[in-house]
């Protein structure tokens, strides 16, 4: 018998420290697989940002720079300008990328920085215990709005992929959900294209991955993914929003 599925090379042997069923684990593995397949391990620098995944450097087996909360894309900008021949990516949660980091996110996209962004949207601040995120759904329970998100008080969820796709300088933007094997495999394809936006087209690529934070949803892992399917996808439609690389090629 042959080994047909195993840990990617670009991951260390350290176990993940996430909660049972947390989507960060799947997302990490996909990053490792894509980097393996694109043979980027030795020329990549990852930017770890602040959220549950802040210590992803325990698991990613390549150079990592960990910056301040929300400043992932600014750190990546500094890295990319300093290392134009290397491949730079950020791994960011919705709190990091869309709450405190909104300014840096929009401006990096406006500049069309040649970086890749892996954006984990789990509709909540996981690391700090389940507070409102910019992507929290209307009515969704959070520890800071225990009666559910009231859009008249806190506004509606932000669809970052759509906003970023609307900016002229972005190259590739797509969204997938880590809910089923099929989706996970498609997420990997999109992630690869988000890296290729950088490596082939010198542009800004982003893949938004809808995932679950079972602990803060107070659901079992399986139910939590069902919740993502049922509630998040309607708010956050899946698909490729922008692929100017393709346009350029065709």
């Amino acid at each position: 018998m042959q080994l047909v599925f195993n840990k990617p090379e670009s991951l260390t042997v350290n176990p993940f420290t996430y909660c049972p069923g947390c989507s960060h684990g799947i997302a990490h593995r996909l990053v490792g697989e894509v980097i393996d397949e694109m043979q980027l391990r030795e020329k990549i620098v990852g930017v770890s940002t602040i959220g549950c995944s802040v210590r992803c450097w325990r698991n990613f087996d390549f150079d990592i720079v960990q910056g301040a909360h929300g400043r992932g894309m600014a750190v990546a900008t500094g890295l990319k300008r300093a290392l134009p021949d290397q491949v730079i990516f950020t791994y960011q949660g919705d709190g990091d990328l869309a709450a405190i980091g909104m300014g840096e996110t929009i401006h990096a996209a406006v500049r069309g920085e040649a970086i890749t962004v892996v954006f984990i949207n789990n509709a909540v601040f996981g690391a700090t215990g389940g507070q409102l995120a910019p992507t929290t759904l209307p009515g969704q329970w959070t520890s800071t709005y225990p009666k559910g998100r009231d859009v008249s008080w806190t506004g509606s969820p932000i669809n970052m992929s759509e906003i970023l796709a609307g900016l002229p300088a972005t190259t590739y933007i797509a969204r997938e959900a880590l809910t089923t094997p099929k989706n996970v495999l498609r997420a990997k394809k999109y992630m690869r294209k988000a890296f290729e936006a950088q490596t082939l087209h010198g542009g800004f690529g982003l893949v938004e991955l809808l995932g679950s934070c079972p602990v803060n949803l107070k659901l079992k892992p399986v139910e939590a993914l069902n919740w993502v399917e049922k509630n998040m996808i309607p708010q956050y439609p899946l698909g490729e929003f922008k692929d100017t690389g393709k346009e350029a090629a065709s």
Partner: protein
Amino acid sequence: MMKGNEAIGEAAIRAGCRFYFGYPITPQNELLEYMARKLPEVGGCFLQSESELAGASMLYGAAAAGKRVMTSSSSPGISLMQETVSYLASAELPAVIVNISRGSPGLGRITPAQSDYNQATKGGGHGDYNILVFAPASVQEMMDLTMLAYELSDQYRIPAMILGDGIVGQMMESVVLPEPVETIPEKSWAACGCQGRERNLVISAPFTDEDLIDLNRRLQEKYRVIIEREQRAEMIHTEDAEFIFVAFGIVSRLAHSVVDSLREKGCKVGMIRPQTLWPFPDDAFNRIPRAKGVLVVEMNEGQMLIDVRLALNGRVPVRHYGRGGGWVPSPDSIEAEMLKLMEEVEKNAVSL
């Protein structure tokens, strides 16, 4: 002749800095604009950031890649960078930050001030950390101390700050241009792709509680070495001086003119001029054998005063002359304050 702000930029380029990120603010825009003009000419990167926060994080990124980097701002913008400064310190990244500070607090005004001394030297950000702080008093020193800042920042893996004010920043003076640095030390720790080596991590979030305490221990050991080796101060007539000014930056030049004029009148005055504010030149205060009184003159409400008092620990009476918010002392008023101190000390000496 060159403007002080431009001299910093020129020195940075000569020190091998090729990456500048920053956001406009008066009175340091000449530096930003100098880098904007000159860096592209030497194949460097000038990027105007969308804010000081972003600029500081870009700096952090490029520093992590092992490059010599600079950002600059003025007081409110520097306050915005405090979180990142703490990160730079904890990730042990070399980087040079320039604060051409201004009349404060709040938005304040663009008048000269030295009111960010505490922020720079005692850690405006969170945690137990220090950064090198240099206090140039002339355009020449803007260059020389910037060169030194890059050298020491790399050597100790510690962020460094040039702390100036609008006067040294905006004035022109002739300068001798320093030789460009030929080779920048290798940075084996830099995160720039792990080809042919183990991966490098530039992080500010240790894995265990013990790791964080260890980091602090290591930082403190480094700081102790720096305190021992890197104090710098100019000593002016201190061998025989009975009354001593302590002043830094532009104020030291005003005070120096008073030293001259009081010496002409036969008064035994001298001056300690700290060139490094952190490490503070404590040792200099052990080399004022005849001191009977010390007058700290600064453009703030008494910040370096604290370090002077700590250095002297009650051995010599210390007075302060200063105000915040963009006030500049005149040489006449400095002289008057010193005469007052002299009188006071002599009177007390009699009454003892």
